[in-house]
């Protein structure tokens, strides 16, 4: 029986979704900034990371267009999400990405040539070399399946009594997948240190947000699991860094999971295999260029911290060189051994596969 007090109707729960943003599309502060954002160095680091992410994406697309990379998913216009969330994490935290968080992966220590190797069709790209990221999950292609992994990682932290946090990212489309809700709910029941970051870039390939869900916000998807949900301007790296930072530290303090919806726009095609002109208006895309995250932070840096044209050019040149060098290294990586197609499928290969391995190692076919 419900414990309904006298009166036939009453309110038993109230929720509200708050949205934050610190910089306008023009890079003007809307009000007081979070304290980290008063620090020029920190802002420069964020700016550099976003610039680096964009340069990396451009190079990757160029490599794909010239037949030297496979299908690739650019994060154009959404760099603030992946950079902001990574900046909010500690090295010992674990990132569970989807396939558009190269900004976060690079920030944390995944190497450019590793990402290129992966998208270039070589599994070694997911065998990250840097010890700082060896516990991070690789790119996740089946949409939404990454969420439960992060819950498991967070459970591991809790069981070991470690003050670490799992951060998992995904797109607006991924919030329609059952795995997302099952993961949110389980994280809620167990109050685990996990932060769910949604990059709401308005599109899931050709499906626009209003055909994806009738919910006004994606942040409110947290409510059904009893978690706090919050919306931020995902083109404002300060807002992302701030919101994810608060969520991560809440989680670390044992106060449980939460969800951050970052409102962005996918300025590129879905992937290099997609042609977005089939389903959306150029006008819509152009309109969204106005608030894109790099320009916005740069404007603020210039106005508030005297970031100069020279500094900007120096940064771009440095990053250009870095990306080119990484691409060179990528292209120079010798092919995987043929036998590698079976060598890693079990720790101990059964006789059949051992025979295949041996045959491949001798240069025969599988």
């Amino acid at each position, binding site marked *: 029986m419900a414990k309904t007090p006298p009166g036939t109707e009453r309110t038993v729960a109230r929720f509200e979704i708050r949205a934050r943003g610190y910089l306008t599309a023009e890079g003007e502060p809307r009000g007081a900034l979070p304290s980290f954002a008063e620090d020029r160095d920190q802002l420069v680091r964020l700016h550099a990371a976003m610039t680096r992410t964009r340069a990396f994406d451009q190079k990757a697309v160029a490599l794909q267009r010239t037949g030297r990379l496979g299908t690739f998913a650019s994060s154009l216009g959404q760099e603030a999400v992946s950079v902001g969330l990574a900046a909010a994490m500690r090295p010992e935290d674990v990132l569970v990405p989807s396939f558009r968080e190269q900004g976060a992966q690079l920030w944390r220590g995944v190497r450019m040539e590793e990402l290129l190797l992966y998208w*270039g*069709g070589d599994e070694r790209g997911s065998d990250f070399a840097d010890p700082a990221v060896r516990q991070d999950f690789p790119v996740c292609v089946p949409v939404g399946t990454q969420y439960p992994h992060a819950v498991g990682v967070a459970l591991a932290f809790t069981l070991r009594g470690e003050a670490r946090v799992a951060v998992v990212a995904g797109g607006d489309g991924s919030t329609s*997948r059952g795995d997302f809700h099952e993961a949110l709910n389980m994280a809620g029941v167990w109050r685990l240190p996990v932060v769910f970051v949604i990059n709401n870039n308005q599109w899931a390939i*050709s499906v626009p947000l209003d055909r*994806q869900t009738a919910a006004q916000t994606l942040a409110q998807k947290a409510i059904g699991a009893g978690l706090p949900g919050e919306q931020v301007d995902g083109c404002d790296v300060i807002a992302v860094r701030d919101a994810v930072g608060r969520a991560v530290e809440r989680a670390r303090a044992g106060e449980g999971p939460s969800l951050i919806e970052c409102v962005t726009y996918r300025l590129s095609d879905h992937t290099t295999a997609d042609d977005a002109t089939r*389903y959306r208006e150029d006008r819509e895309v152009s309109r969204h260029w106005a608030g894109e995250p790099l320009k916005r932070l740069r404007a603020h840096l210039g106005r508030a911290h005297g970031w100069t044209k020279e500094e900007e050019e120096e940064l771009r040149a440095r990053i250009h060189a870095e990306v080119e060098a990484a691409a060179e290294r990528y292209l120079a990586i010798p092919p995987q051994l043929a036998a590698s197609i079976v060598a890693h499928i079990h720790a101990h290969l059964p006789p059949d596969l051992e025979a295949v391995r041996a045959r491949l190692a001798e240069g025969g076919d599988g």
Partner: protein
Amino acid sequence: MAELTLIEAVRAALARALEDDPSVVVLGEDVGLDGGVFRATDGLWQRFGERRVRDTPLSEAAIAGVAVGLAAQGFRPVAEIQFQGFIHPALDQIANHAARLRNRTRGRLTCPMVLRAPYGAGVHAPEHHSESIEAVFAHIPGLRVVIPSSPARAYGLLLAAIRDPDPVVFFEPKRLYRAGKETVTDDGTALPLDTAFVAREGRDLTLVGWGAALKECREAAETLAGEGVEAEIVDVATLKPYDAETVLGSVRRTGRCVIAHEAPRTGGFGAEIAARVAEDALDVLRAPIRRVTAPDTIPPLPRLEHLYLPSAGQIAQAAREVVAWR
């Protein structure tokens, strides 16, 4: 009559079905304005409207489950799963509901739905985009499993699948989507859903395959012909129900059987074919059955996927061995 690629044939069959039968509804991710990531539904949204050609949220379980509900109401949903590698979340609805509804209700409710998905490796696709798990579906009672190997087969079999009163999974060899054209008469004629096709006649051995692997089977047969070995090719286009008779008939003539498939060997549908031959045609077998398949591993990322896919060379070699047996 037109020369169509396989993907065009799929589209022609979908258009024909939508045109002929108001109960046909196409649904799936990006099947609307975008026309499907492979363009299988290109133009259908414009022609038949968003009510009948319907973009869904990114929810494979619900796509299958909603199709069950539609089908139980007498519609004929044709749902697209964008890649076979993403069909797993739909398996519960397929195995526990779609395939059972008729049996569970003794025919009161039925489930005339089709689930289409591109399958297979060889197109340099990203991770999880190269799966070939038809055997999983062929083991599910109550389900039909169809895999066309050419434009004409795709057209006729898809129409048959849509018209069938029971659920059908229809896996399209994406490697062949644009690999060649074939004359397709778009007159609404369906092909039988329970008949394997003899794709090439030959006296020396029986090559059994389906879908994309038919390409390598044909190439192998050409090579072998140059060596004086005539391979008969059986295209098991309908894995379930499996047309054992056509395969057995061929093996009875040739006495030798080689089976080729893209899926990993262990538990692939080739095992069923081999088992049936070993049960029912052992007396005529003049050599061991051979399976030429992918090894028991995950489809590799693009750079090494050629080592994974069974090649025409491997098929020809297996054929030579069985022909030379003893």
